[in-house]
């Protein structure tokens, strides 16, 4: 192929894209939709349930303070510390629950795999930025709040190319 033909062909291929829709996700206005409500784990079957590995969700009514999540995190990020909680539960004699430092967490989800009591899940919330280091430390009370997420953009494939909804 000649040089001129090749360049015209390349330009032509680019010009065709002028009429196509933009693929870019306009992030703060649009947010990607994820499958399910986040990564979870079923200790009976030993298999996880697909979902985004975002901020954790702690269920105070299930947590027994067994520290298995903290032990699982020891070799990974040392992000989980067990802290005293004011309320007392019958199933949590020591009244300790995990507190997670998102400045250290790598979102691998091995703590969720370690929990045998269905107390720790991960949620779709990934917007965790903070101006201070202390703001990244989530106490058990903060972790039990269900995140409010409005995520609806999905990759849509049409004849005119792929777009984000």
């Amino acid at each position, binding site marked *: *192929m*000649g*040089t001129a033909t*090749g*360049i015209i*062909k*390349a330009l*032509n*291929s*680019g010009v065709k894209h002028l009429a196509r829709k933009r*693929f*870019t*996700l306009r992030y703060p206005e649009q947010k*990607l939709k*994820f*499958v*399910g409500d*986040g*990564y979870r*784990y079923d200790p009976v*079957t*030993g*298999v*996880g*349930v*697909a*979902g*985004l*590995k975002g901020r954790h969700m702690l269920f105070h009514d299930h947590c027994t303070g067994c520290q298995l999540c903290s032990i*699982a995190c*020891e*070799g*990974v*990020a040392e992000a989980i510390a067990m802290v005293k909680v004011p309320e007392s539960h019958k199933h949590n004699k020591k009244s300790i629950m995990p507190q997670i430092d998102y400045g250290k967490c*790598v*979102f*691998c*989800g*091995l703590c969720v*795999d370690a929990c045998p009591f269905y107390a720790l899940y*991960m949620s779709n919330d990934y917007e965790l930025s903070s101006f201070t280091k202390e703001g990244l430390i989530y106490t058990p009370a903060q972790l039990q709040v269900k995140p409010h997420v409005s995520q609806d953009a999905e*990759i849509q*494939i049409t004849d005119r190319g*792929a777009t984000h909804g």
Partner: protein
Amino acid sequence: MSTQLPPGLQLEKVDERIMTLNVGPQHPGSGHMRIIVQIDGDYIVACDPDPGYVHRGEEKMAEYRNYITNIPHLERPVIHDSCNILYPYVLGAEELLGIEVPERAKYVRVIAAELNRCVYTLYWLAIYGIFLGHSTMFMWPTGDRELFIDLLEKLTGARVTHAYFIPGGVRNDMPANFEDVCLRQVGYFEKRIAEYADVFYDNPILISRTADTGILSRNDAIRLGTTGSVLRASGVDYDVRKKEPYDVYDSMDFETNILKAGDAYARSKVPWLDMMESCRIIRDALSKMPKSGSVRTKLKPNPKGGDTSVYKRVESGRGALGCHIVSRKKPEPYRVKLSVGSFRNLIAMPYLLKGEKLGNMPSVYWSLNYWPVEADR
């Protein structure tokens, strides 16, 4: 000016014609490494790649963590190809711990590994565009990479560092409608990748930058121990997926792409052709996989290996990637050694650049399919 230098210091002898030039480590055209080139005018006389700026001690760290907690940090050397870098470790750990993997998990692994190979190759191609000053070549692969990142995010729950493979299978099963979404997006990508030929691979400007530069002959490629796309671009038929099939690659329908030229153009084209084969493997695996069944064998807490060692090898985005695990009856491995494709390919660089123009250095360097962080580990 005193001619007496303090002890331990000495002046470098300067040649009249030859100039020594440091490219990197703080240079956008070098990656996280330094390339010391000696130039005579515009021609490179000698070249000495100097890696090691991003050494993180992954292998040493692996000696202090057990077989499960090793997973999140071992994928850090190549976060774009995290499934493939975990693959040999997981295969080795399974043999050491004596775990059987469910059939469905093997197929899910193959799909995740091939999706990840596409993510890595597209990123690599995008950087190659930057190196050559072709901004469309940067933006198109970066945009199309999103298709695979989206699929992996649905499958594994993370966009880059998945921590998805685990001794005994994979962490979670596929989500409900994954198969349809995967086929749709991979089908779109297959149409899209054909367009790359017009803009990049048949583009005379790109060909003039890459063709006939840094020619690696077939014998040299074997002698220097290169691997992956570099080896296949020099006409050697070698792909670990074909030669030593692991998991279910022996039943997959795909071909090895071989080009004979051995120049930077051929080395940049082989990964592109490999991506098409990856799409074929993904389709094949989705159709052949068992529709139901477990994907993970439950592990005992703190599993211990025997008094043996094991070596496993897989084909990553950069070539053969081996993992040697030595076990001494403890929950932690005694030694984990990663043998990575990037470092093997870097060895060819001084031979390729000798006699080239300095301006051809970026196109030869990045065509070696080299990832600095992986080479340093």
